[in-house]
């Protein structure tokens, strides 16, 4: 089994392996098999298209957590220039699961905040698997307030399984750290664009997710609890994660239909990790477009709209 491919992608993996094999043979012999290779490549593309046209919520959540999926720093590198990372909450520590700093989008100065996962084992541990502690959220808050003070638009990139459930995190007030960010972001006097780039895990995601625009990459997910967590609570077993994912409607498509997400940023065929460059370009264009719109709005109107946007979330009957 090819680990670069998820289990539902294995038919594609097999075709790709065949193509590689043929290429290897092609180098060795005089026979021209380039025609056969391009035929197989067409077939592989068509197969990928057909598989990706019908992904279910659980498959999408696997894509959102794909080990090769681009993380915040990948987008920082591809989209922005002149990035200066800022560290620490000034109180306790620097949390490596949340990163942020000043950068330029084209020529415009902006503030960036995002959760950061690690690629290899050492970095995964250093980044705590993208699960922030209170000091991470407090660092984020510090950067938000910096952004306000210096009139920098705030761009956040959400990618976390959730806030870290640890003893130390509770001791230092995980709840309060998240809650305070929600309050601060709701009134922050600068445009805020939030983008879910991978996993949007619950309150830990929302803590950098209150803003004027909420975008989701096509194969990212956003949910109140992980499908596994939902399954173990409501089905009393971890085996119903796929059902839970479907029931909660965690995909960009469903959340757009429900009016919770403003915009879906399309991913390249096979997912963001198959072509990081074109993914980054799509995201960059979406950011520029939204930023131009938001910056054209008077600040008081922007804040009114942000408030109203959040007041509109919810379904109820009034008799």
């Amino acid at each position: 089994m090819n680990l670069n491919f998820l289990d539902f992608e294995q038919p594609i993996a097999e075709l790709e392996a065949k193509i590689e094999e043929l290429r290897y043979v092609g180098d060795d012999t005089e026979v021209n098999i380039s025609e056969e290779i391009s035929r197989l490549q067409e077939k592989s593309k068509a197969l990928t298209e057909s598989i990706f046209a019908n992904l279910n919520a659980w498959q999408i959540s696997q894509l959102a957590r794909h080990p090769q999926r681009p993380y915040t720093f990948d987008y920082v590198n591809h989209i922005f220039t002149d990035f200066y990372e800022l560290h620490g909450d000034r109180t306790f520590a620097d949390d490596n699961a949340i990163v942020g700093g000043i950068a330029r989008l084209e020529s415009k100065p902006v503030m960036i905040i995002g959760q950061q996962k690690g690629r290899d084992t050492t970095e995964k541990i250093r980044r705590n698997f993208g699960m922030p502690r209170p000091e991470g959220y407090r660092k984020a808050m510090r950067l938000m307030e910096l952004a306000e003070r210096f009139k920098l638009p705030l761009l956040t990139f959400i990618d976390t399984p959730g806030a870290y459930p640890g003893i130390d995190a509770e001791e230092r007030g995980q709840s309060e750290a998240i809650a305070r960010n929600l309050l601060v972001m709701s009134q922050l006097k600068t445009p805020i664009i939030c983008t879910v780039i991978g996993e949007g895990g619950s309150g830990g995601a929302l803590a950098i997710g209150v803003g004027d625009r909420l975008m989701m990459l096509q194969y990212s997910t956003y949910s109140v609890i992980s499908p596994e967590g939902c399954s173990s609570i409501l089905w009393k077993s971890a085996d119903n994660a796929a059902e839970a994912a479907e029931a909660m409607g965690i995909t960009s498509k469903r959340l757009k239909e429900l009016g919770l997400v403003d915009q879906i940023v399309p991913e390249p065929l096979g997912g963001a990790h198959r072509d990081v460059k074109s993914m980054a370009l799509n995201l960059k264009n979406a950011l520029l477009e939204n930023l131009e719109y938001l910056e054209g709005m008077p600040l008081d109107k922007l804040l009114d709209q942000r408030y109203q946007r959040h007041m509109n979330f919810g379904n109820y009957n009034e008799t």
Partner: protein
Amino acid sequence: MSWLKKIFNTGIRTEGGQKKAVPEGLWTKCAVCNAVLYRAELERNQEVCPKCDHHMRLGGRRRLQHFLDEEPRVEIAMNIEPVDALKFKDQKKYKDRITAAQKSTAEKDALIAMMGNVKGVPLVAAAFEFRFMGGSMGSVVGEKFVRCVDTAIEHNIPFVCFSASGGARMQEALFSLMQMAKTSAALAKLRKRGLPFISVLTDPTMGGVSASLAMLGDINVAEPKALIGFAGPRVIEQTVRQTLPEGFQRSEFLLEHGAVDMIIDRRNMRDDLAGILSALTHQATPV
């Protein structure tokens, strides 16, 4: 069927018969000190054990009845009801869960809100009903909370909320997560108007409720020994694979770590909050 099965397959076996000699509900046992308590006396004591001061859970409506002056009381947004917009179904349908919870609690959802006075100090007070789906916060709770804030602003009075909740309501999926943002945004508005918000955290206050409205009090108050935190103790234990320290995530632990301002015995809640609120709003000390 083997003889062994015949003996063991009767399910949970309880002693029947004799227990019914005492009329049901007349006596209660304290879960902490095991004292046998007279139900009516316990009710008068606001569900606090008179022997060991253990604070048992108190329903939302009764909470407000104990807390507020008898007159005046105006219920806020009492006609908002939940809807199952997602057609959510796990082992049960969400719709059926709503119906069952409404039937067993006689409430429409998990938050009850009133405008009234506490020792003559006018305010808006809201209380979670934990028995309604674990006090979980969905769209109705979020909307009611916002109406409380709006009422407080309209009448220029403070707002007190007693929380008791397992967190966000999973059956409303991302809508419930967004209630965290909604309620926090409303509290930011209340702050801007200079009106006090006192958050009283009661047993239990966890997850999305703790990580939004409940931790955003100008003053955070806890009841003794209430379980308060973000992640549930079982999740933490599974993650860190360590035994949790004694008293972890209890009110006293939170006080020690600086997360709450004070712990107030339920029986002093009226006096103490009236004292604090009157000071914050520059009114005479209530008598």
